[in-house]
Each structure stands twice: as C-alpha cells, then as structure tokens.
C-alpha cells in the first residue's frame, strides 16, 4: 500500500473529500427522477441514462463509435506532432530570426477559430474522414507548436554553457540538454491540444459524419431519443475526463523531475514531485495507444457496414441512409 499512498490522490480520505459532492450530485439526479421532480421527457434519471447507454452499447455499437472518435483524435494528434515539434525545435533553436519574423503570422493562424475552417476543409478534401482529421490536426497543431517554441527558448542557458564547457558538441547538447529540457512544455501543449481537439471533434461529428460519438448524440437528438442523448453525452464526458487523467498521469510519470500536475486543476501542484514511471508502464501505454489506433481505423472502415447490420437499432439504420 505504500506505493499507493505516495500518490496522494489515491488516499481514500482525499478521494472522499474530493468526490463526495459529485456522488451527492449523482444521487440527487437519480432521486429527483425517482420522485418525479424532473420531467423524464427532458431530464431522464441517472438509471434511465445508464440503461440507455447500455442499450447503445449492445445495439448501436457504442464501443465502435467510441473507437472511431478516439482514432480521429489520435490521427490528428500524430499529424500535428509530426509537424509542430520539429518546426518548433527548428524555429526556436536554429532560426530564431525566422521565428521572430514569422511570429505574428503564426500567432494569427493560432487565433483562427478552428471551427470556421471546417467548411473550408470540406471544400478542399470532400466529405469523408479527411476534413475532420484535418481540423483536429489544425486544432492541436498550434498549442503544441507554441509550447515547443517557448520550451526550447526557455532552456536554462547555464545548462547549455555547462555542457559546452564539458566539450559537448552541437548535436550532443541538442540531444542531451535541449530535447529533454523542453519536453515537459511540449507535453503540456499536447495536453491542451488533445483537450481542444476532443471538443471540436464532437462538433465536427455532429455536423457531418456517419460514425462517432458526436454522430450518436446528433442522431439521437434528431430522433428525439432523450435518454440516448444523455447516455452518449455521459460517454463523451467520461471519455474527455479519462483522456485528461491519462495524459496527466503520463506527464507526471515521464517528467518526474518537474512539479506534478493536478489532474483536476491542470495547474502545477506545488509541494510534491512526481514518481518516475516504469518502462513497463510506458510500453503498456504505447501498446494501448497502438491498439486503439488499429481498432479505430478498422472501425472507421467498417462504419458503413455496421450501419446496415440488422441487429442494430432500426432508427440508426434509417438515419444513416
């Protein structure tokens, strides 16, 4: 138990202190439904919502839709990382003058409302997966790029000088000093990017998709299936919060020398440092990542077929046509 105790969030008392209000809220939700205080046509109770989620899971391929949504986020993220990190390092380290000259233009790009680019991307890329993934890549690109740039610029010059006086060449000092020193910042940018792209994803799926969580919500709304809206909404919330937790866990483990990040506030927790993550856990996380990617791509390809499955809820089959 000692190991669990060190990660302060796991102590039962702290857990209770943090979440009793949430539990109370959920209980109040259920009770107000049971006592007839809320109109089930608009606000179904917690148990009704959960049974709707179960129904979606069993008869509307909820799992597959979740995988589709997650994969879109992941592919967008990989594309954004592939562009933003090298450019951030290059502009921050090798071409600072270019970074200064390009700065205003890039800032304008970063301030562009990503959602208003969605119609443009539809015009460019047609109506398949590409415009959605392009929007997600665009959304996560800028936070990652700017935090990489800041991270690379704010590398402690003393560290670089020390390295140089010990005879480290350019390559060595880049690999051993700049890269790890800026990595926590890059990861913070990544976390912001994932959060924002998950926001945008649901909206993108609501306007033009045939699979994904946003599509489930949208079609349930169009069919006036209120418990299903809440059921799928619950999934979106759980997935968003879970994704954030997972990234915070990774960040605290990977950059254990930094102050740890509070999963709720997203701000740095003072007092305690993180605990180093074992390489087994990193390998597991990577494997899970690849698994989600593989399953999700498979599901995206299968999405149209699934909709024609006779065991699915009939309305969903009709809606897809």
């Amino acid at each position, binding site marked *: 138990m000692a190991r669990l105790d060190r990660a302060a969030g796991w102590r039962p008392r702290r857990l209770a*202190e*943090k*979440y*009793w*209000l*949430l539990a109370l*809220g959920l209980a109040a939700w259920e009770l107000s439904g049971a006592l007839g205080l809320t109109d089930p046509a*608009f*606000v179904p109770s917690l148990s009704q919502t959960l049974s709707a989620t179960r129904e979606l899971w069993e008869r509307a391929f909820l799992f597959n839709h979740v995988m589709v949504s997650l994969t879109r986020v992941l592919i967008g993220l990989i594309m954004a990382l592939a562009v933003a990190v090298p450019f951030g390092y290059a502009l921050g380290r090798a071409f600072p003058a270019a970074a*200064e*000259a*390009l*700065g*205003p*233009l*890039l800032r*304008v790009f970063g*301030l*562009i*409302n990503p*959602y*208003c*680019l*969605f*119609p*443009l991307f*539809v*015009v*460019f890329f047609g109506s398949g997966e590409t415009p959605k993934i392009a929007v997600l890549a665009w959304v996560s690109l800028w936070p990652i790029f700017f935090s990489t740039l800041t991270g690379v610029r704010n590398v402690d010059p003393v560290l670089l000088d020390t390295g140089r006086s010990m005879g480290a060449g350019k390559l060595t000092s880049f690999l051993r000093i700049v890269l790890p020193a800026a990595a926590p910042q890059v990861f913070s940018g990544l976390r912001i990017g994932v959060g924002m792209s*998950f*926001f*945008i994803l*649901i*909206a993108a799926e*609501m*306007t033009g998709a045939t699979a994904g969580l*946003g599509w489930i*919500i*949208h079609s*349930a*709304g169009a069919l006036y299936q*209120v418990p299903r*809206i*809440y059921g*799928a*909404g619950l999934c*979106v*919330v759980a997935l*968003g*919060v879970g994704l*954030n937790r997972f990234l915070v866990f990774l960040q605290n483990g990977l950059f254990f020398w930094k102050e740890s990040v509070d999963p*709720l*506030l997203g701000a740095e927790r003072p007092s305690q440092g993180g605990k180093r993550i074992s390489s087994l856990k990193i390998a597991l996380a990577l494997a899970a990542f690849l698994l989600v990617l593989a399953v999700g791509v498979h599901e995206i390809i299968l999405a149209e077929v699934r909709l024609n499955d006779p065991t699915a809820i009939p309305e969903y089959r009709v809606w897809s046509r």
Partner: protein
Amino acid sequence: MKITADTFWDLFYKVGSIALFVLLWQLGCLAGILPKTFVASPVTIVETLWQYLNDGSLYKHASVSLLRAFYGFILAALVAIPLGFMLGGWFKNFERVFNPLLVFLGQFNPFALFSVFLLLFGIGEFSKVAMIFWVSIWPILLNATLGVKSVDPSLIKLARSMGMGKPGLLAKIVIPSSAAFLFNGLRMAAGTAFFMLIPAEMMGASRGLGWLIINAQINYQIPKLYAGTAVIVVFGILIDKFFRYLEKITVTWKEAQAI
C-alpha cells in the same frame, strides 16, 4: 515621428510576414497555381466583403453573432465573478469541497450539452446564449477564485489593523490584487465564447456568422465562404486584443501575466 531604420524593422517584424503571406496568396491566385474553384483571392474576398457591407447583410449576421456572444458572456461574468469571490474569500472550506465538482463541470464537452440545451430551451436564441453562458462561466469562475485566494494575507492583515471595514477591504485590496487574474479569466472566456458560438450557429441557427459560412459551403459560394471566415478570424483576434488592451490600461500596477 522620425522614421528610422529601427522603426522600419519593428514594423517589418510586426506585419511583414502577414503582408507577405497575403501577397503570395494573391499572386498564387493570379498565376493560377491556386485553383479558383477552391481558393478565393484576397482581392475577391475584400470585394465580396465590400458588397455584403453595402447591402447590410454582413452587419445583420455579425451583429446577431456578437449579441449572442455578448449576452452569454455578460451573464456568465455577472454570475461567476461574485460567486468566485465568495468561493475564494468567504467560504474557503466550501470552496475546497466545491472546486473538484466545478472543475469537473468545466471539463464537460459543451457540444454534448448542446442537444440537451436545445431540448430544454428550444431552438430560439436562448439555447445559444445558454451554451455561450455555459462555456464562458468556467474560466471566469476559476480565475476569480484563484485571484481572491492569491491575495497577499499580510496586506489584508495590515488593512484590518488600520481599521478598514469589509467593503473597503474588497474595494481597495481584494479587487485590485486579483484584477490580473480576473482579466485573464475574462479574456479566456470571451475567446471561448466566440470560439464556441460559431459551431453552435452552424448546428442550429438561421442567422449569424456561423450560419453564413455553413450556408456558403452548402451552396458552394467560395468567395462568400472565405469572406465569412475572414470576418470571424478578424473578430476573434480583435476580441483577444481588446481584452489584452483593457488589462494593460486598467491593471497598471501588476506585471502582465504571460499565458
């Protein structure tokens, strides 16, 4: 003002890259590298904007959008600032209990709620304003709470020992020293409000800038699509700049927080 080499380079660094980008865009369109069916040239965009400005439709859609964002934002500020002050100042234990719930609520995906808001409030203006209210309340609330919590306690003790009452404490110590946080929260909220307004208008509206561009996309009116996008981009940047400027001229005693 004397124009020296320095001011020239200053200006170059500020707008040079943007001007170059627009110039290349225009040249690409003129040379035919960028296909006309997909990309409208900057000159065409300006012409389209001028046309919409003259027939009043731009004004109509922009004012509808801005009013929605404004109402949602003002309502959120009116609720969140006093609530944040109370949570951060007077009911500290209350805040410790409530904060996880509030942060959790803030992480809710607003689009999962949009369908619910449509159900609860109908398809009129109110559901959109409710959505803007929902997304802008969290940054303001969190920053107001943080701001009040970060007030130097020795300042409060000092003021109290000099016989200052609660209203004076609030007006002279608490509000000034948490103002930087407050402005930060307001700026983030205004940005988010405008940011979320566009998809909300795309999904369920018949007026507004979001509707303008989704309608242009459906009807394949490329110049209109680009013109609407340009207006949204400019408004987004102006809102950000406006709040930064407001913070700079009002919170003169505190160094700007770089976030």
